[in-house]
C-alpha cells in the first residue's frame, strides 16, 4: 500500500489561529476513511487544506500519484445558488469540466454517463427539473451524481449526510461502497459514530492533531473520544499561543 496523502507537521488555520495543529500522518491509497472529532477539531479545515482551498500556515500536505485536479470535494454546505435557472442534468454535467473544459460539447457517451449517474443516485425522471424545485435530500443526491461524473481518484466529503434522511443516506452510502470497490480513496467527515462503525473500516479521530488513526473499532473507543473532547476544551482555553513550538 502506498500513501496517497501525507501530512508533515501540518498546521492549518484562519487568521493565524490554528484549526489543525502540527498534524502528522498519512492516508493510504484506496482507503475508506472516516474523519471524526468534536466541533472545532479541524475536520473541515483539513479537507480544505487537502483540496488546496486553504494554504498551510506551516508544514506540508503532499499528494503522491494524485494531482490536485484528481480530487473531488463536496463541501459541508455547498454554496449553490438554488434560484439560478438550471436543471439537474446541467449541474451533474459540470462534473465533466476536467475533461471537456471551456468549449467541449457533451458527446453521446457523456450524455449517457450523466444519465446513468442521475439514475444511480435515484433521481431518474428529475433530469430536466430546475434545481429550485429539489428538496434537501434530492439536492444532495444530485451533488453525489456530479461526484460520480467527476471520476476522481480521491473524494472528500464534508458531513455529506447531515440533515439527510435514512433512506437517502443509505442510498448514498451504497455509492461510497462502490467507490471503495473501485479503489478510490474516500475521506468523509462524519458525526454519526454508529454510521462510521457500520460503514467505514478506517477512522481518523482528530482534535486539532491526531488522537488516533487506524481500524475504526480500535479508534472509536470511549477513552479516545474523551481524550479528543478534553483536548479541544483545553486548547480553546489557551488558544492564543502554541505550546509545542516553545
Amino acid at each position, binding site marked *: 500500500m502506498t500513501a496517497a496523502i501525507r501530512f508533515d507537521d501540518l498546521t492549518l488555520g484562519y487568521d493565524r489561529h490554528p484549526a489543525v495543529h502540527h498534524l502528522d500522518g498519512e492516508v493510504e491509497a484506496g482507503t475508506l476513511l472516516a474523519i471524526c472529532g468534536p466541533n472545532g477539531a479541524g475536520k473541515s479545515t483539513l479537507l480544505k487544506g487537502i483540496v488546496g482551498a486553504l494554504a498551510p500556515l506551516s508544514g506540508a500536505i503532499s499528494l503522491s500519484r494524485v494531482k490536485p485536479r484528481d480530487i473531488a470535494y463536496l463541501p459541508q454546505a455547498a454554496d449553490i445558488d438554488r434560484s439560478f435557472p*438550471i436543471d439537474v442534468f446541467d449541474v451533474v454535467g459540470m462534473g465533466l469540466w476536467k475533461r471537456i473544459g471551456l468549449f467541449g460539447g457533451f458527446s453521446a457517451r457523456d450524455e449517457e454517463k450523466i444519465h446513468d449517474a442521475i439514475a444511480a443516485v435515484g433521481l431518474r425522471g428529475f433530469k430536466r427539473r430546475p434545481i429550485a424545485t429539489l428538496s434537501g435530500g434530492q439536492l444532495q443526491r444530485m451533488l453525489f451524481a456530479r461526484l460520480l461524473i467527476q471520476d476522481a481518484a480521491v473524494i472528500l466529503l464534508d458531513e455529506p449526510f447531515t440533515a439527510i434522511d435514512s433512506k437517502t443516506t443509505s442510498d448514498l452510502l451504497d455509492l461510497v461502497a462502490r467507490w471503495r470497490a473501485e479503489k478510490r480513496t474516500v475521506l468523509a467527515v462524519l458525526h454519526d459514530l454508529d454510521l462510521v462503525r457500520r460503514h467505514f473500516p478506517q477512522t481518523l479521530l482528530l482534535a486539532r492533531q491526531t488522537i488516533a488513526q487506524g481500524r475504526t473499532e480500535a479508534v472509536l473507543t470511549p477513552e479516545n473520544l474523551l481524550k479528543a473532547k478534553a483536548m479541544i476544551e483545553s486548547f480553546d482555553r489557551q488558544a492564543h499561543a502554541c505550546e509545542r513550538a516553545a
Partner: protein
Amino acid sequence: MFSELLISPFVEFAFMRRALVGATALALAGSPLGVFLILRRMSLTGDAMAHAILPGAAIGYLFAGLSLGPMTIGGLAAGLIVAVGSGVVARATILREDASLAAFYLISLALGVTLVSIRGSNIDLLHVLFGSVLALDDATLILLAAIASVTMAGLALLYRPLVMETVDPGFLASVSRASGPTQIAFLTLVVLNLVGGFQALGTLLAVGMMMLPAASARLISRDMTAMIAIAAALGWLAGYVGLVISFHASLPSGPVIILTAGALYLLALIFGPAGGLLRGLKPRSHLEA
C-alpha cells in the same frame, strides 16, 4: 397609415436609421449581459460601473473635446481600473465586492464631475450623461457594432464558466482556476458595453438598456437561453418603439427608449408567467397526469 407611423421616419431620415442600428447593437449585446448581472445579483453593478466610467471619459474630453476616440479610450480605461481594482480588493481584503465597488465608483464619479467642470459648460455634461442617439456618426456606429460583436463572442466563450461561477462558485474553484479570470472578463464586457452605450444613450441610460429588458426576461421565462433571447428582443423592441415615439412626439430619444423599456418591464411585472404579480394571485393546482 401604419407604415407612415412606424416605417417612414426611418425611410426618410438617415439619422433615424443610424439611431436604430445603434440601439439594435446595444440591445443585442447589453441585454444578455444584463441577464447575467441579474442572476449574479449584481443588478446595481451596472449603475456603479456607469458612474465609474465618467472620469476617464472626462479626461478624454479635457484633452480632445467631444470626440469619440479619446473619450472611449478614457472611459474604457477608467472602467477597467475600477472593475479590476474592486475585484482585486474583494479577493485580497476583508471587504466584499459590493463595498469595494461602491468605494471605487464614488471616488471615480467625484473625480469625473470635477474634471468635467474644469472645462466646459453644463450642456456638455448633459451630453455625457444623457447621450445623443440621434447624432450617431459612422465612427460611433462602427464602435457600437464592434462592441456588440466582441460581446457576443466573449459571452459565448465565457458562458460555461460564468454559469458555473454563478450557480456553484465553490465547485468551479475546486476544479479550475477559471473563476477569477471569468469574473474579470465578464466585468470587462460590461464596461465595454457601458462605454459604447454612453456614446448613444449616455452613461445613465446605457444601464437602463442593459438591466430593464433583462429584468423583464427574468419575469417571462425560467430558461436561461430563452431569457437571453427575450432580453435581447425586448431591448431591440424598446429601442425601435422608443425612437418612433420620440420622433412623432418630439421627445428626447434616449430617455424615451428607456421609458419604453420601463413600460415593457411593468407589463412583464404584472403578466410575467415566470414570477409576475398576477401569477401569485391565483393558486394553481399541482401537476396531474
